[in-house]
């Protein structure tokens, strides 16, 4: 019952990630992979802590290649697909509040372009206020372009 329902409900990539998670927690792999990853995560958190000692908000693009890979024919095993998360995964690992805001369209491709704003822990209000100000400054609010 369990394998049938999970096979039915989850797509290939989700199943892949669940199996990966199970694998790294397994006896014999936990210390080398999962525990090490948790230590690297701690380093990422500390790097952000230093940055937020200097800055209030960090910005980056959301898509690293402006959707070029995402628009390719859907090939599940293209490793570049994992690269799509390049800017969004690190702050997520650190548990930081993030916000993605549309900034207009790419002149060449006509595709929408988005900016990621990253705030410090529990500073969601500052994050939203900053995005609000940017939106007003660049007049990028939907319907106002």
């Amino acid at each position: 019952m369990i394998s049938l329902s999970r096979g039915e409900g989850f797509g290939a990539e989700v199943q892949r990630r669940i199996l990966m998670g199970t694998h790294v927690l397994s006896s014999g792999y936990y210390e080398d992979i999962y525990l090490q990853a948790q230590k690297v995560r701690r380093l990422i958190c500390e790097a952000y802590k230093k940055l937020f000692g200097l800055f209030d908000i960090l910005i980056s693009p959301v898509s690293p290649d402006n959707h070029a890979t995402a628009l390719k024919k859907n090939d599940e095993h293209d490793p570049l697909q994992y690269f799509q998360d390049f800017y969004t995964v690190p702050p997520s690992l650190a548990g930081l509040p993030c916000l993605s805001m549309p900034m207009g369209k790419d002149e060449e491709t006509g595709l929408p372009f988005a900016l990621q704003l990253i705030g410090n822990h529990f500073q969601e209000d500052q994050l939203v206020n900053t995005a609000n100000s940017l939106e007003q400054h660049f007049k990028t609010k939907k319907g106002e372009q």
Partner: protein
Amino acid sequence: MASDDTLPAGWQMVIGLEVHAQISSASKLFSGAATAFGANANEQVSFIDGALPGMLPCLNIVCVEKAIMSAHALGGEVNRHSVFERKNYFYADLPQGYQISQLQEPLMRGGKITISSEDVASKDIAIERMHMEQDAGKSLHDMLVGKTCVDLNRSGVALMEIVSQPEMHSPDEASLYVAKLRSILRAIGACDGNMQEGSLRVDANVSVRREDAALGTRCEIKNLNSLRFMRQAIAYEARRQLAIIDADGEVAQETRLFDADKGETRSMRSKEEAHDYRYFPDPDIPPLVLSAEYIASLKAGLPELPDARIARFIAEHGLSLYEASLLAEDSYIAIYFEDLVGKVEGLSAKAVANWMAGELFARVKEHDVDLSKLVSDFGLSATRAASLLSLIGLDKISARAGKVILDKMLEDSTASAASLVEKLGLQQLGDTKELSPLLEKLLAENSEQVVAYRDGKAAVFGWFMGQAMQLTKGRADPKVLSRLLRELLSGNKK
């Protein structure tokens, strides 16, 4: 001890117990759903217990408090930093696909339980650890043919798992351990210890060995839910293993279940290879960090524990170890006893204890209830019982009359002891002015017996007592009667 319970000379049973005790709290360990026993199936299941996507656990601090108090009561060391981990496995009654438990950093380490009885000399059984975890739901295989029904009411209820060292060597020792553990947890209100309802369950690890040899291979017998079954299961399992060894075989390490109807243990049906539970700290739950002050404050708030109360009953009330154990182990009974002692006139605490152990407990058994039901449903509060006992203590009625009155008091929960005495005419005759004429008449009518007594036939005294009792319809105060009779018989003329 039954011969079934012991092994041949030179052989020793080695028993370790893992006790799962449900924590008495209004809601579950990580969800707000109710924990009350006996609800209809799946009526006490929150979204968290049903593991609906996105639901996050929220720790119930009451459960933590009771677990810490239990740790103190068991003499264990509370870890200031403990971690909740996921124990991953698939089963239909485990909607999360994992049980939140504690492995590497449990709430408590160490501790001990002292057991003693008339047959077993006082002994300490060491505890290895105690941790908190979620209970699973229930799978019911017998409700529908060919199907298993799942009830998630129990899913997520807080459990304490208390693991002993393998220091017990007989079914009796195991039974004493569980009984003492149960009474300690009940005394502090951490667990109601009701094995029939599943509040307390035992897994027994049993192996056998020649005395002083290395430990043998052990088998685990799971989910024993009564002391009687636990004793039977342990005894059977030890003999089963010995039979294998005697036949030059090797005991296989396995998990077994106890079949109560057959009185045997059997291997669990679908046993997969040793599970890799892939324990890892639950990312949704931060580590439990407790301050030393908080831990200490809970220790200060502990009520009197059973062992301390037993010792106090012996010292303060002059009870024997047996009497004290009988009355002090359960808080409700202990409080009732001391309440009685405070209210009864004319009887020593020991006499009150005897009355409880004899008359009162007999009535409890007869009506197939427990003491609290006798109080609530039959109105036998300590105050009401004390009024009866005071009548005995002040020689207003005999002990024998007291038995009759007690039964009447149970039949009619509003009738007072005094009114029943009046109504039934059971007042004790202790007035010498009333008794003397009766006795003199008795002696006068039986002059031959009087002569026989004075000639040295002491047994005649008993006959006279019997006759006098009959004359007074059993109401004479035996002490007064005996004294008067002796005086009259030995020739104290009026």
